[in-house]
């Protein structure tokens, strides 16, 4: 894979499309084990991301990602906002000044993004958070030649497997055992992010 500035913008575009289309689905997931706002939050945030990207011109992939980071940080709110914001900030920092990103740099950047989420949110794998999608995706990037269809499958499976988990971090943790059996909303939005990435690198 390779990620140009246009690819990155396209990635955000596709992510936004999916999030807007599935806004109510994400909110419905958050209704069951949260507070009914994840779709609203993500839709608001990514809409602003697209506004921002549409209005600017970029010289580097990292600048695109920095704007994504800052916009998500200041428009999403809730738990998801600072976590997605941190992730994109780490991507941007790791890829600093690159105009084109190759697979290994991206894998490295993704690792730092995951570390950022962990550092910020103090959760880890298996706690039924977005990390349960981010970590498997990152593992896949570190260990393999990335293929679009495999990436899509891994992200999707990871999201679906959050169903089986019991939440111990975030708002869903208050539901204890009752959180089992439902997909984690943040994992669902993360799936939209990575399936969009798969489409871009296809």
């Amino acid at each position, binding site marked *: 894979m390779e990620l140009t500035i246009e690819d990155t913008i396209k990635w955000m575009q596709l992510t936004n499309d999916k999030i807007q289309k599935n806004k109510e689905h994400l909110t419905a997931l958050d209704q069951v084990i*949260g*507070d009914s706002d994840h779709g*609203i939050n993500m839709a608001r945030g990514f809409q602003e991301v697209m506004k921002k990207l549409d209005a600017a011109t970029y010289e580097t992939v990292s600048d695109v990602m920095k704007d994504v980071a800052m916009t998500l*940080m200041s428009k999403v709110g809730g738990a998801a906002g600072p976590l997605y914001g941190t992730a994109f900030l780490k991507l941007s920092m790791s890829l600093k000044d690159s105009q084109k990103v190759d697979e290994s740099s991206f894998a490295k950047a993704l690792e730092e993004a995951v570390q950022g989420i962990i550092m910020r949110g103090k959760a880890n794998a298996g706690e039924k958070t977005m990390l349960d999608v981010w970590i498997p995706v990152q593992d896949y990037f570190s260990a393999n030649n990335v293929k679009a269809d495999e990436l899509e499958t891994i992200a999707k499976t990871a999201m679906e497997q959050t169903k089986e988990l019991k939440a111990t971090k*975030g708002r869903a943790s208050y539901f204890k055992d009752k959180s089992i059996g439902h997909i984690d909303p943040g994992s669902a939005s993360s799936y939209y992010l990575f399936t969009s990435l798969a489409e871009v690198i296809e």
Partner: protein
Amino acid sequence: MKKIINDPNRVVEDMVNGMVQAFPNQLKRIPGTMVISRQEAPVKNKVGLVSGGGSGHEPAHAGYVGKGMLDAAVAGEVFTSPTPDQVLEAIKAVDGGAGVFLIIKNYTGDVLNFEMAAELAEAEGIQVEKVIVNDDVAVEDSDFTTGRRGIAGTIFVHKLAGAKAEQGATLQEVKVIADKVVQNVRSMGMALTPCTVPAAGKPSFNLEENEMEIGIGIHGEAGIERKEISTADEIAEELTMKIIEDLPYQSGDEVAVMINGLGSTPEMELYIVSRKVQEVLKEKGIQVYQTFVGEFMTSLEMAGCSVTLLKLDNELKELLHAESLAPAFRV
């Protein structure tokens, strides 16, 4: 969804404008933000107090902005923590040179966003301290979990830390009081009906016609038990006992009591609950120093209530009595 609103996506904007226009001599909006501050902010050489969180809990938090309580409140979207840039604006708006103190309810979103704002403020040379309020005994308290939620007990933190700051205390002294309140305040709530986030349009959960949920959170997060509605006395006793058991009391200890309505519970019912809470406390030999009954920390139009007890010593009593000009808490 039946609501008196203009646009589900504009409720916070409209509300913030409505609040500052209702109290033009006391409150102002920091332009371009969702921050409501005291008209006179920043107060020179006074520690600035900032709280906030998702909207939908009114009068929390902007109702507690005023002399003797908060200097500013940040309003997030409904049930959504405000973003770091907004919190940063609040911090900057109230920094009078003595540092800024953040009162944060313990939710992942609030903690993350406020902490990031604190980092940004410190990078700009503003001294920041904070307290994380976690008074909800319905949730297990463990380092391996998100920990207890912050609910109505937060109002006592606003009040007492606010009174301390008004006396000219240092940032550290304010923190000592806030920590002391957090150590001594416990709450628990229950609900009869769900509430509806305007932009979601659907109730956040369901309860059968004969069901209630004990220990529910102020965003409708799961509680301890869902069961058949019992009497007000049984509810009051269950909430109060759970609170008392959590923090050891000795006969003769004094408390402030807050009976808080979650949104659509008639005040009549809050007084019926209060009656029994007083009875239970009396039986346990716990003295009631002062009682507050009303809507202090709501959850949109949820029906239900919470009980809060704050164990008092002389220092806290004095601060409880200090003047407050906040619109929603006048002393």
